[in-house]
């Protein structure tokens, strides 16, 4: 019983740290890039803005949203008897 439990909780810990702490970190990178992009009062140092960083920021946000969308798709589709396959790189739904 304890061993089974250890295995299950170990998986939860590994995935949760990756997603639950990794995505906020990625989002934080986005916020930081946005601040560097705006410059001035957005930053503690108050340097001039670097507009190119705004693109980096929005890429970070888009990546966060994409990971969430794929995660939700995996979970919801399994409830309806489907699973998500990455065989063709882009996620596609196939029947289990």
């Amino acid at each position, binding site marked *: *019983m*304890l061993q*089974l*439990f250890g295995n*299950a*909780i170990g*998986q*939860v*810990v590994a*995935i*949760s*740290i990756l*997603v*639950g*702490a990794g*995505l*906020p*970190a990625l*989002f*934080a*990178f*986005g*916020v*930081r890039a*946005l*601040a560097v992009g*705006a410059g001035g*009062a*957005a*930053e*503690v*140092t108050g340097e001039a803005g670097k507009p190119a960083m705004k693109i980096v920021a929005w890429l970070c946000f888009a990546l966060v949203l994409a990971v*969430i969308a794929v*995660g*939700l798709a*995996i*979970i*919801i589709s*399994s*409830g309806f008897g489907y699973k998500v396959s990455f065989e063709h790189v882009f996620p596609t739904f196939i029947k289990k």
Partner: protein
Amino acid sequence: MLLILVIGTAIAFDFTNGFHDTANAMATSIATGALKPKTAVALSAILNLVGAFLSVEVALTVTNAVVKLQTSSGAPNPELMVNNGHELLMIVFCGLIGGILWNLLTWLLGLPSSSSHALFGGLIGSTAAALGFAGVNWMGDGTKLDGVVGKVILPAFASPAVAALVATIGTWLVYRITAGVAERYAEGGFRWGQIGTASLVSLAHGTNDAQKTMGVITLGLIAYGVQTDTTTVPLWVKVACAVAIAAGTYMGGWRIIRTLGKGLVEISSPQGMAAEASSAAVILTSSHLGFALSTTHVATGSILGTGLGRRGAEVRWGVAGRMALAWLITLPAAGIVGALCFWLGDSIPGYGGPLVVFAILLGLTGWMMAHSRKSAVHAGNVNDEWHSEVKPGASVADTETVSTKA
């Protein structure tokens, strides 16, 4: 008639489940001002409603985790089916009452306790009263995680720790990465992250928790003999449970929202986002691996973790200790209520028994509602300054008298 009482109390339980757990998703967003209190509960209610329909798993065997009322196919044990399933309906009815009363009491005390533990506790108690301790599934057969120990007790100890760990790491990373960004600027960006992650937690809650009541009601229908299909939940049951949990969420358990949002840790937007991201990740991964954790335990652990991950943040360990105590006694306390209800209801013959038990439920509910009025917490004062309070809601009452004088 007993069937109608069972359905009614099941839906009532679902309602208390909703309002008890609004805090898990929305306490942090309300505390940081990312969302107005009313907007937050409305958003959470809608997502719970949607979530309830996105069934992760058919929940017909939900009671099998803790008690032996059903076979593994979902059909009730034949010996409980005599006399239109009277005995099984009584067990479920008393178990639900145990769950509701414990949910209301912890709400009155402003403590976030697990609604699923309350339900399971009630069912364990009423089953033990009816069938003896052998009727309870303590350990399963040892080949997989099962039974009270495997599905309730071990996860209850592990989940707050896992969530706290994830949230601590998340918070620490977020503060490291955004060092150098002006605080006001960062707050604005993280508010959006907070709203998004809190929405995910609400959705996950709807998919997990509404299922349990759906399973219980369908079990009642099968026991009574009006349904024979053991693989599907009737549509009206789904709709009723989804609406009940959403309505409960919209009501908002303000007392608990206050404890989680203001009492445990003074929270900022980046911390709020890290907390909800951790909760969402832990809840969704674990339930996808067929290993459902209590939303309440996870959310509380996450909020605690954000206090640990940010340098200089204060964690009120006294508040955390009271919560831990409430968690420890949730299962036995709801169990005792469930068992007492069963003994009482079973000793009075005919329909008198269930009616007396139902009357007690109504009476105690009314008493607790009236008692809560003395120090009401609502959308207007949920964010007031937290004073170390012995009585829940006491600090709100204090600030109210101060503000009326001033």
